[in-house]
């Protein structure tokens, strides 16, 4: 697993890459070889689409976060990024941020998206409830378990 971090809190673009298998040498994914891309924001899916293998899958959170050039009016946020993405790849759009808000905490957006990729990758047989119980604070366990199921149901 490789990640470039630090810039996210300051509005920058951040990516993490996960590779697993019987033998993993490079921690980073070679451009054009990712099986799946999960984007927490629409435009970021487009930015990193060159990492996807030709028949790979994209799961996109239907969320728009304006970067500073858009906020200050120096650039325009494309009006139909999903449409543009659909021309390029097999795209599943999920409104994870809104669903997370409906569950009462926008912070579980990531776990809804996790549920979606788990399903898309055929890994839903794993005991995710237990994994969540082992990794989140007690008072958030149930919320996260609901969130991951929600995500799985969307794919």
């Amino acid at each position, binding site marked *: *697993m490789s990640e470039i971090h*630090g810039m996210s809190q300051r*509005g920058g*673009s951040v990516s993490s890459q996960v590779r697993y298998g019987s033998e993993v040498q*490079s921690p*980073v994914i070679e451009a054009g070889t990712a099986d799946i891309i999960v984007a927490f924001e629409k435009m970021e899916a487009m930015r990193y689409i060159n990492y996807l293998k*030709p028949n790979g899958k994209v799961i996109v959170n239907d969320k728009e976060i304006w970067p*500073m050039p858009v906020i200050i*009016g120096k650039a325009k946020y494309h009006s139909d990024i999903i449409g543009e993405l659909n021309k390029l790849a097999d795209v599943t759009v999920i409104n994870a941020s809104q669903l997370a808000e409906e569950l009462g905490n926008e912070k579980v957006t990531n776990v809804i998206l996790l549920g979606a990729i788990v399903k898309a990758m055929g890994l839903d047989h794993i005991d995710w409830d237990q994994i969540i119980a082992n990794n989140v604070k007690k008072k958030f366990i149930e919320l996260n378990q609901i969130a991951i199921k929600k995500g799985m149901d969307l794919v």
Partner: protein
Amino acid sequence: MKKLFTGNEAAARGAWEAGVKFAAAYPGTPSTEILENLALYDEVQTEWAPNEKVAVESVAGASIAGVRSLACMKHVGLNVAADPMFTFAYLGVNGGSVILTADEPGMFSSQNEQDNRHYARAAKMPMFEPSDSQETKDMMINAFDLSEEYDVPVLFRMTTRVDHSKSIVNCEDRKDVPDKPYEKNIPKYCPMPAFTGDMQKKLYGNLEKLKDFSNHCKWNYIEDNHKKLGIIASGVAFRYAKEVFGNDASYLKIGFSHPLPMDLIKVFASKVETIYVLEENDPIMETEIKAAGVQCIGKDKFPQMGELLPERIRLAAFGKTQETIKPNPKAVVGRPPALCAGCPHRGFFYELSKLKNTMIFSDIGCYTLGALAPYNATDACICMGASISGGHGVSQALKLKNEDMNVVSVIGDSTFFHSGITSLLDASYNKSSYLTVILDNRITGMTGHQQNPGSGYDLKGNKAPISDIENICRAINITNIRTIDPNNLQEMKDALEWGIQCDGPAVIITRWPCALKRLSEEDKQEFPEVFTQKYHVDMDKCIGCKKCIGTGCPSLEFGRVEDRKMNITESCVGCGVCSQVCPVDAIIKG
């Protein structure tokens, strides 16, 4: 016990298993988490040092006194620490000592891409270069043993991908390493001309012996696969090469990279027809291999600048990359980092950017982002501390040129402690006349909230004495000092206007916590209402003039909720800067 560790976690674990007792660092991406993880082990005295030079000196002292010691820093930090390091190599060690440099091919959060493998050559020090987390842990343990065996501090070079990538590590117990007795030994520890000759002979002689180690150690090994192509690679470039060439090449993996295992390289060269040297950044191995009379291909074919990612190796070797999907460029806008919502630097930069005829010398930290739109409020920036001394030089040169221009230096609290104090001493001693603004956000912000000498806590979370910036300034003869709240724009504006017309050096300290800081009890008392409320836009009052956008706040969006009206998103933490800019009082608390 197996764990999924980043390289940084593995470095900390390795040092702990090796019996390290003292460790010091100054935070810097990508190295920061090493000390943060080492601090979790009770047996190790871990400390944030004010800067890297101090860290290496304290580590040298701990070594001389007889315990194993570790200093960590990012690549540019080693420039700061170079002075003690070169001579520490002459002295040698008592307790084993490792100096870790985290280089940044790709410059994700750095001001340059220097290759610190050069330092091993220049200082005549042995160097390890791990390529994943397991190697990091294992090599760290070996580095401490080697340091004691050869009586020399050891350089340990990691890179961003090795630091931040996670892979599986087999953890073991901490070794019981007895403390070494300290014995007074002037010829060993005092580098005066009478002794430096012998010290130098020992150091250079060591390097000869280490060649033997390099040729036979387990970190440098051959993988025989193919006669046509042989690849010599170090660090993460070895992993990338394996992905691209697989079993279609033979490999010589270099993990102990200074001195190079030249005998082994010659053996490898005799087995293969063509050799590629894959190393990130400078052609260091390539140059030495060619000088030893071995033909090889390196930077003529593979890029020197940036990371040597698999797609770049593939393109260079085969003339094409994997098939990729091209993004629609019209649908992608750059996403540069920006000051956070509620950042206390916002009010400062908003007012600073309005000053006319002003040369602004900035420094290394979040406030370097003041150079970007909408502020564009920076003229130059070099390294930590350079804002104040650079500003002094600008100010003196303008005087020599008879030019009238305001000069403002911008520096953060942690950076001021790091190397700004001596710069300000320069300004006061040499009777400069310009303004320095110290942005005191009560924490080391950019690297992710490490404590510093002004924050009141140490690395382990214990209370520590607070070094007061105002008092430090007074002690070095700065008399024009104001401490203000940067979110109050009128106060900020008045202070700037006062500061640039002062006779003699002036200092403004903007004191407000980072919007992301976990507030201490002292912060809560000093800033009782900080970040407790939000602002919203009264849509009936908003005239859509977009003046508030000039504050560059990411919580603002225009025309998204209502046409031609401003909106404030949930990310607002209530600094109130935008409301002071609004000409019609449409931005309201609550």
